[in-house]
């Protein structure tokens, strides 16, 4: 749409005049800064970018991004973004959603967006709580969690968003952490390059209603023991000295001491594997940010994208039948003349 002049942006170009209204210390700030910085470094004119969100603290995001954007209704962002992506394959369309927005009220739209594989980049800010409505348990809250709406403990079994996305035929699935800006940006880059829907679960700290939910992965004492960094083509090991390794036993991923197994038995991570089973097995290592938990890209596989297929159908139809001719159309069922 624009000429080939390379646009050189700074982060400030992606900031808006709107006062950012998240609570001080909220993980959303760091994600916003990472995304704005990442966008500035992209060689993409900002008028080509659209952010669509639902409702929630996280969903205020588009107001703070100086691109095109819609702050829509609770849970429906993937549907609205799908319309944009199908109508305009030339745009870069991003969805920002929360664990309640994307996995509860909007769960249906999310899974269908994933299976269709449209050019959508979906950022799910998972703080394991309903922030905006002031602290009820969410579909990712751990079972037994005590909140305002679950004083005796939540009776719900949570979703594992990565497993869910893999099960929903997602072609790109990743997990990152708000505090790790570099990691977030790396994952965003890969997601952007991916053709089709990319799903990124971002562990996001809500310091008001669910503080330190991810401490096992971010705390100084625990993070080395728990954070499994997934690297394409590398054996899956972790710990200060790489002393833990992941092996596949009967299809299930298992953590073992690295020195207890032969090097060739350690899982080697392949993001491009056509079959998602190994990625799924990795996603089952933890159910929530507790104990050894993989972060990084689980899957990045190539599949045709929905909006390109639709576009091709239009091109094929025109090639076959010529451009739409209304006059012919209204006569297509036979006509007669009255004099």
């Amino acid at each position: 749409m624009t000429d080939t002049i390379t646009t050189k942006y700074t982060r400030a170009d992606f900031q808006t005049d709107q006062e950012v209204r998240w609570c001080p210390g909220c993980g959303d700030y760091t994600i916003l800064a990472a995304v704005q910085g990442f966008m500035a470094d992209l060689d993409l004119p900002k008028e080509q970018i659209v952010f669509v969100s639902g409702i929630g603290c996280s969903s205020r995001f588009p107001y703070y991004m100086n691109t095109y954007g819609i702050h829509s209704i609770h849970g429906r962002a993937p549907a609205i973004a799908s319309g944009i992506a199908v109508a305009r394959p030339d745009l870069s369309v991003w969805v920002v959603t929360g664990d309640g927005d994307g996995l509860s009220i909007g769960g249906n739209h999310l899974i269908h967006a994933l299976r269709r594989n449209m050019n959508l980049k979906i950022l799910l800010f998972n703080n394991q709580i309903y922030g905006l409505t002031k602290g009820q348990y969410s579909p990712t809250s751990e079972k037994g969690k005590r909140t305002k709406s679950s004083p005796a403990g939540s009776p719900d079994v949570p979703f594992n968003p990565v497993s869910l996305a893999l099960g929903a035929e997602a072609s790109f699935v990743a997990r990152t952490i708000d505090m790790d800006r570099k990691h977030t940006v790396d994952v965003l880059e890969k997601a952007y390059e991916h053709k089709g829907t990319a799903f990124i679960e971002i562990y996001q700290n809500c310091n008001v209603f669910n503080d330190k939910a991810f401490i096992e992965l971010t705390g100084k004492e625990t993070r080395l023991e728990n954070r499994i960094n997934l690297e394409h083509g590398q054996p899956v090991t972790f710990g200060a000295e790489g002393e833990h390794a992941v092996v596949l036993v009967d299809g299930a991923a298992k953590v073992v001491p690295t020195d207890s197994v032969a090097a060739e038995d350690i899982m080697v991570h392949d993001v491009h594997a056509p079959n998602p089973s190994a990625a799924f097995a990795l996603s089952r290592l933890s159910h929530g940010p507790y104990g050894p938990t993989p972060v990084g890209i689980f899957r990045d596989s190539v599949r045709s994208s929905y909006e390109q297929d639709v576009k091709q159908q239009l091109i094929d139809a025109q090639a076959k039948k010529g451009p739409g001719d209304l006059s012919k159309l209204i006569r297509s069922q036979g006509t007669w003349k009255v004099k």
Partner: protein
Amino acid sequence: MSDDTATLEATPSPDIEIEEIDKVIIRFAGDSGDGMQLAGTRFTADSAIFGNDLATLPNFPAEIRAPAGTIPGVSSFQVQIADFDILTPGDEADVLVAMNPAALKANLVDLRTGGMIIANEEAFEERNLAKAGFAANPLEDGSLAGYRVFRVPMERLTKEAVKETGVTGRDVLRSKNFFALGLVSWVFHRPLETSIAWVESKFAKRAEVAAANIASLRAGYNFGLTTEAFHHVYNIKPAKLAAGEYTNVTGNTAMAWGLLAASQAARLPLFYGTYPITPASDILHELAKHKNFGVRTFQAEDEIAGAGAAVGAAFAGHLAVTGTSGPGLALKSETISLAISLELPLVVIDVQRAGPSTGLPTKVEQSDLLFSLYGRHGEAPLPVLAARTASDAFEATIEAARIALKYMTPVILLSDNYIANGSEPWKLPDLDALPDISVPFLTEPNADGRYVPYLRDPKTLARQWAVPGTPGLEHRLGGLEKQEVVGNVSYDTNNHQLMTELRDWKIRNIANDIPALEVDHDEGAELLVLGWGSTFGAIRAAAKRVRKDGLSVATAHLRYLNPFPANLGDVLGRYRYILIPEINQGQLRKLIRADFLVPAMGFNKVKGLPFHVSEVENKIREILAS
């Protein structure tokens, strides 16, 4: 006419009497697996090509295959053909084709006394009779004495006819609907050529099925020709319709074509986001066939997503449409409110069916009017339009798109099951005269070097449409209340009052941009019959009938249900009596009474069927006599 019969192998014997009649109402009825919709549609198409005026009423069960032979499994197709301008598919049938006892039982009440019954006699055996609840065979027990009954061994003759064609098993008897069609075509002097051509192209890939259907069709025709009982035949001359070129069209097809036309008239690509639902799905099916028009059909995971995707497409600069029926409209409600708040153009089609809940999915009702006007949270006004006939649906659709684009608003366009599936001749419009409904996208900042999304046109109060991809016009829209002009989130209470009023004024103001309500036969009438939607034909025809007796009655039909035409109050004020027939419990009546404080009377029916002309006629006579 003799030209047509001459093309058939057999020559008519000289003692065939041809009676000229001006109209006939035929109902094809059978099991839902008997192909009666197809027989009816083909007869209609043949009559249309022949030049008759016509109107149809398909009536089918909600289940795809209700138990065979039972009354719930009966499917019927009524068509009225005439040599003059008719408005409805007619009240009572003159001819009933009954493919089994259940079809006879379910439809006999609608056959006029003295009418003709063509019965597929072999189906009247013990089991079928029992399933239909007949203690004795009505073809034999004298209970049909008031009718002219023709017993035809359709199954045996069909089997005989298809013997050489290569069809086997269940396909053999499948063709019996074509036998029935052939016989009725003989009786009413219809040519077979168009149906033969249709079969040949439809079954081009299954030559034996094509051959069987054609053989059955001819066998039915020839059976009439050679059977003395059928030597009194009827002819209905072509109707004297206004000069022009015509096609036969259903409301759903006309709406789909209207959308394609609107897309061209708006110079915007069409986006149709939807989820399948009876009776709206055929709009999707029709549009999906015409991808060469650049239309993107999006079959979403549900109606919420269908509407949501359309809102996204509107934001992205497409002519965005979402179509559904009542249950789906309920699901779209929150998204439509969003579109009102974002002030994006969106056409929402509701092909109404009987509710509440799943209701009667294949039957007509006009019961979503109040829901369309008020079925949203908050103060959420939007324009509501209704098509009145199948052929009117084309123009009504373009008009809905015009209003949506010009006023940057969602518009609800109402149709119903009767309009959607019924067909009638449609005089093809002059496509060169289609209105230009395009609105330019904004390409430059509109306020001090920046874009403020809620700056309004002082006349229409519409905001300006800036689409992604336009440099310098990046902006965010949202469902939170917006500061006037600037569009930023605003919690200011006075601003909310102002924005609420602006959204309201914008819609009310459309009353100045729509045609005045026209009244038919105003002279000296004390009674106005006011309608909307698919009651049009019944109301006009009823008024015509009473006028023949020298009585005076005026009629008017609303296309615009919100806002009403500016002159509606004046019109209502001119009459002593106002009658509002509706296929609901009085929804327009409630609006008229509330807005104009007039004692409008209702005439309401919710049987899943359109009004009979005689029902409206009798009501008019009753009021005029009082």
